[in-house]
């Protein structure tokens, strides 16, 4: 019995699903009943759809339990721990195991497997071996940079710039002061890859930064993390302190003379534009996070005007693996121009939402249907949104598109940081475009006129269309504005803000037209274009809808026909989904 270990997944998604309660339950049982199993913590394993997840390691065999609340924790202890009988009904079954088929975990290699708050567990998984290897064998800066260039690793934050080249530019600058920055300002709504990495394996990012610092000759590192990720910040702080105690950070690292490097964390304050590198630097300097003209690029003049290397979280997480296993091993995965793997966050109308890491070249169809398990409730797949507010929607008929930088860009979307939001037939594409534009419009820093005012005008047009007030020529006006904004904005935010609109016009023009000409929303989403009514022939007067209605818009006595007051109705659809007799019609 003593060889049994119970590990609870405590990432943000697990905690939101109640994993803390599960953990506390195990802890209480252990204490009260004096059981001697080992209780451990880890982070997100990627299967967000089955959180809270508990792994029981019994004589080196792993049993993965899904949706474990406090009651089920008791059940697991009673049966599996005490009697040695695994609770079959709670095990993540074979079909869900297919979630892992075809995945190659490089960046996520330790996520969900180690306790992120314990440096020993990272070291036990070959952690900090890469930097030790570099120091021990006296590998030169040029050699490291060449390895990264050879590996073909490109920036995982969305830009796709070759990482090795970026390092080379910084390394070539001859100054005493250089900086290494980790961009952890993951602002794309619908993307949570970086959060999971920071929470699940913070040491891999720190090691990646140490290697980068060594290669480019920097002495100071900053992790710019969004304040909305409190758990990530907490775990990073713990990890940095542990790394310092073990001599991986500080002065004369690993006893190498004059190899000094320190990292500190800077909390973002909630501005999407700060994901842009020059805005991020301004924010670290304590200013309004507004981008500036490039060149000079940060490699030349970055933080406090010194040469600065900025990479994304996922990029850094790949570095130690590449150094340890070699460029050729990494190059094995991927396509001609995009090497290695990419992490995607699956969300939206999909059965298995979560985190997947696949080799470049995987098709979107396979990600959604093989790993993601398809669309729930038998609905039809319509489109997938890639790249957040800067990206676009790829329609169902292009789902054979492979994921690599060039192929995704060819569709009009962008690879972005890896958010993948799946949409089905009940999603209105005009509404989606309006949603993203509303976001970018609010987040525009206001510096460039076209981005500041142009996005506002586009949003107004989209709002009119979704309210049923669109008119002929609106689509053309949107397109004209879109191109002007793209051409006349300084930074990535403005240059890409119109992408969601342009791709939805390109692939779903019919939906725009039916909103404008017929005043109809095919997906039945746009509130001004739909009404909920009660069919008197089918209504049994069960009162369920009246109770469910959050605004008390439904009136009617028991066993009498109910009525919806259209003036009060907020069109939330709760009545529609709760009626057992299909008495509510949506038109």
């Amino acid at each position, binding site marked *: 019995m003593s060889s049994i270990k119970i590990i609870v997944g405590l990432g*943000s998604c697990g905690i939101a699903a109640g994993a803390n309660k599960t953990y506390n339950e195990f802890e209480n049982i252990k204490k009260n009943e004096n059981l001697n199993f080992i209780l451990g913590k880890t982070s997100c394993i990627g299967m967000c759809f089955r959180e809270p997840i508990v792994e029981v390691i019994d004589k080196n065999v792993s049993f993965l339990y899904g949706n474990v609340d406090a009651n089920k924790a008791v059940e697991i202890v009673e049966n599996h721990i005490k009697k040695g009988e695994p609770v079959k009904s709670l095990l993540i079954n074979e079909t869900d195991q297919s979630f892992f088929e075809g995945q190659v975990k490089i960046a996520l290699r330790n996520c969900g497997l180690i306790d992120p708050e314990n440096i020993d567990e990272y070291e036990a998984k070959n952690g900090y071996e890469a930097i030790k290897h570099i120091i021990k064998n006296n590998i030169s800066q040029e050699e490291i940079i060449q390895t990264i260039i050879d590996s073909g690793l490109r920036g995982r934050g969305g830009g796709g710039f070759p990482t090795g080249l970026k390092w080379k530019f910084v390394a070539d600058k001859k100054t005493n002061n250089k900086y290494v920055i980790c961009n952890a300002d993951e602002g794309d709504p619908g993307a949570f890859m970086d959060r999971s990495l920071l929470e699940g394996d913070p040491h891999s990012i720190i090691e990646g930064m140490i290697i980068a610092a060594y290669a480019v000759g920097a002495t100071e590192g900053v992790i710019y993390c969004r304040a*909305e990720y409190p758990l990530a910040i907490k775990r990073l702080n713990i990890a940095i302190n542990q790394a310092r105690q073990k001599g991986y950070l500080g002065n004369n690292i690993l006893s190498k003379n004059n190899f000094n490097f320190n990292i500190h964390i*800077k909390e973002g304050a909630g501005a999407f*534009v700060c994901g842009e590198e020059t805005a991020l630097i301004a924010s670290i300097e*304590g200013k309004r996070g507004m981008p500036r003209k490039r060149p000079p690029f940060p490699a030349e003049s970055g933080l406090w005007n010194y040469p600065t290397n900025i990479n994304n979280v996922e990029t850094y997480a790949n570095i130690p693996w590449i150094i340890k296993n070699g460029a050729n091993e990494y190059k094995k995965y991927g396509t001609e121009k995009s090497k290695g793997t990419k992490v995607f966050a699956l969300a939206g109308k999909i059965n298995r939402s979560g985190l997947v890491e696949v080799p470049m070249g995987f098709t979107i169809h396979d990600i959604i249907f093989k790993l993601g398990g398809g669309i729930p409730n038998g609905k039809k797949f319509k489109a997938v949104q890639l790249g957040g507010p800067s990206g676009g929607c790829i329609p169902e008929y292009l789902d054979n598109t492979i994921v690599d930088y060039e192929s995704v860009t060819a569709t009009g979307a962008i690879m972005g940081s890896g958010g993948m939001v799946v949409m089905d037939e009940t999603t209105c594409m005009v509404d989606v475009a309006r949603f993203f534009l509303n976001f970018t419009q609010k987040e525009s820093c206001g510096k460039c006129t076209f981005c500041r005012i142009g996005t506002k005008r586009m949003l107004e047009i989209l709002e009119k269309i979704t309210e049923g007030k669109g008119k002929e020529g609106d689509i053309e006006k949107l397109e004209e504005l879109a191109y002007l904004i793209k051409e006349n904005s300084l930074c990535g935010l403005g240059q890409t803000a119109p992408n969601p609109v342009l791709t939805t016009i390109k692939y779903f023009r019919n939906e725009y037209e039916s909103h404008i000409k017929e005043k109809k929303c095919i997906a039945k989403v746009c509130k001004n274009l739909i009404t909920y009514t009660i069919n008197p022939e089918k209504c049994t007067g069960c009162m369920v809808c009246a109770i469910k209605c959050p*605004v008390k818009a439904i009136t009617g006595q028991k066993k009498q026909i109910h009525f919806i007051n259209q003036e009060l109705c*907020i069109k939330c659809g709760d009545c529609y989904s709760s009626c057992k007799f299909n008495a509510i019609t949506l038109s």
Partner: protein
Amino acid sequence: MRIERIYKTEKKENTYEPSVDLTLLDELINKYKNYKGNLIPILQGVQNIYGYIPKEACIKISNETGLKLSDMYGVATFYAQFKLKPVGKHIIKVCHGTACHVQNANSITAAIQEALNIKDGETTSDRFFTLESVACLGCCSLAPVMMIDDEAYGKLTGNKAVNIIKNIKLNENK
């Protein structure tokens, strides 16, 4: 756009601002006084202490550190995190990320607005709740999601959300 126009006609009488204990700031000021790039951490510290950024605090900080009031105001209004008005005891953050949006997050906000009789961004008159929309809480698999203080609630409907809020109030009034 991150610039908000200030209209002169805006009534001043609604801006209820309790006077605050400024001595709480001393430690914060000492910690960051001579540290470059200190403006954002200072403002974050102020908000941690008071829950928002009171005007008096800015004046004191400006006097003692030499930071310009105009810079402080510029930064405080640029970033979504900073609040210049006092907030309610509990902050309700309704997620409006992409995943939540396609799962009908708008109806959650609409239902809460209706139930609390406030608009997005406002605080109830009893200063119990502040309603906010946020971009993404990163719990996309549980969409639609809201977070009250540090607790996340997933797979909501309008009705569920309103009930959760009512229960919080009921439990505290007991």
